[in-house]
């Protein structure tokens, strides 16, 4: 009620002005009959001034209502003039505080979750090392060989989880440098040596020594590692995994081609979606639907394009455009 009166007090002022002050003046000047046009003109003039003042005192609030907000902080109204603006601003500030507290609370919970998962993954690595070591020592035993393979699988998924956790922090520490592509690919292949041998897949690198690209070494290594890992996992026994380069206008394209089960065309557009495992995931039951999601996210951050071409049961090529 108080605010309503405050907001409408100017109406009352206008009415008093027009009907009493103006009326009185006109009366003094010689009666309403002779000065009717003058009266109309003056009252409209006063109305116009009144609206103009009203607008200048309140336009912030109208703007706030009619513009689509982009950020939460736009909810705040700066330098309120009128009583309504003042009240509105006060009110929004309270909302802002509530939202902010909510967000901070959620952020801190999420941070705790992240820390907890990070911590427990690292804790798991110690028992994993023990199992791995025992299996390595009993390398001749068939059962231990299977245990070791499963340990490696577990380690892969744990690393995958860590990579996913760090995805939101990548942006902060991207470092673009000049990278020798061949050296990088060779590094990835050697990291995956055991996986290559175990699956009887043979790497073949057709990349010249003098090919360089500008990118973040650590992140692009993760990307190539993931694609290579998939290439081996879904490759045919005794086949080759081929790494080669195509040069487009100003673009270096790294192609990674495997000979294997391929990806059906209905799945191709969706393989980068999170948790999407598609037909191969259903058949093999081992994919988590996270690997290629991370690949795409990282490549987006580095602004490298990626494309896939696949002929089911024949071959698949992943192309990274640097």
């Amino acid at each position, binding site marked *: 009620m108080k605010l309503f009166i405050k907001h409408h007090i100017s109406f009352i002022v206008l009415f008093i002005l027009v009907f009493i002050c103006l009326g009185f003046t006109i009366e003094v000047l010689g009666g309403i009959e002779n000065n009717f046009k003058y009266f109309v003109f003056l009252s409209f003039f006063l109305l116009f001034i009144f609206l103009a003042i009203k607008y200048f005192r309140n336009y912030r609030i109208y703007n706030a209502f009619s513009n689509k907000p982009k950020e939460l902080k736009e909810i705040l109204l700066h330098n309120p003039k009128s009583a309504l603006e003042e009240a509105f601003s006060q009110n929004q500030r309270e909302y802002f505080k509530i939202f902010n507290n909510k967000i901070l609370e959620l952020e801190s919970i999420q941070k705790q979750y992240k820390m907890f998962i990070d911590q427990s993954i*690292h*804790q798991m*690595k110690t028992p994993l*090392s023990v*199992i*791995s070591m025992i299996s390595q020592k009993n390398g001749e035993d068939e059962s231990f060989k299977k245990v070791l393979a499963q340990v490696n699988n577990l380690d892969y998924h744990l690393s995958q989880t860590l990579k996913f956790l760090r995805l939101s922090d990548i942006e902060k520490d991207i470092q673009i440098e000049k990278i020798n592509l061949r050296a990088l690919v060779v590094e990835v292949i050697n990291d995956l*040596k055991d996986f290559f*041998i175990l699956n009887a897949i*043979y790497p073949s690198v057709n990349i010249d020594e003098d090919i360089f690209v500008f990118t973040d070494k650590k992140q692009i290594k993760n990307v190539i590692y993931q694609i290579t890992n998939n290439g081996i996992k879904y490759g045919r026994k005794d086949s080759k995994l081929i790494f080669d380069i195509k040069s487009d206008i100003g673009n270096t394209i790294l192609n990674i081609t495997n000979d294997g089960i391929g990806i059906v065309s209905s799945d191709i557009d969706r393989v980068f979606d999170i948790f999407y495992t598609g037909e191969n995931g259903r058949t093999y039951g081992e994919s988590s639907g996270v690997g290629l999601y991370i690949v795409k996210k990282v490549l987006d951050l580095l602004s490298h394009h990626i494309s896939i071409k696949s002929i089911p049961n024949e071959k698949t090529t992943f192309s990274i455009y640097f």
Partner: protein
Amino acid sequence: MYKIMIIEDDITIAESLSAYIEKYNYEVFIVRQLEKIMDEFNEYKPDLILLDVNLPIYDGFFWCREIRNISSLPIIFISARTGDLEQIYAMDNGADDYIVKPFVLDVVIAKINANIRRAYGDYSNLTKERILNLKDLSLYCEAFILKNRDREVRLTKKEVELLSLFIENHPKVISREELLRALWDDEMFVEENTLNVNITRIRKRLTEVDARFLIESVRGVGYRLVEVE
């Protein structure tokens, strides 16, 4: 014999590591009193240290700095953390190398060997010709020579790698994977026929020296060295 000290709070890891390293002619000491690392260090006087990062009371970085104050021996970190930052931090605190859990035992041995070699420059102990004997057959791993009584033949590096595996593990079957791992070259990798080609070559070498051994293939598993009656 070089002395290695293991500082690791997980006793299973420490003991398994120790058992494996001892096979490679090192003396190993596991620190049991993790609050008295410096005392243990001064008493045992190791030549190399394997140091875990997560330790009770003080972490590995702290102990590394402490040890660095009085010694420049090689220190290898063993940690579950794969991040670059941790590795940089370890190196900044005076570490010589860094191994990530879960590790491959052969990698640990290779890193220990490399660091010992670099620190003590003592090649005599390590480059002493490794000679593998099996009945009349002798394989000179450094000279790349295979000898059988008075006959001898020169081998390639890959042939030595394979033959030493066969001789060391005689008469066990060696899996294709293991053989391929031995053949894997960090620059050229392996190809489909790398193994077949090398097996054929070794068979030829064995006949060249008139050896009483031959290589038999075991379907679906791998190969083994067998004695001819």
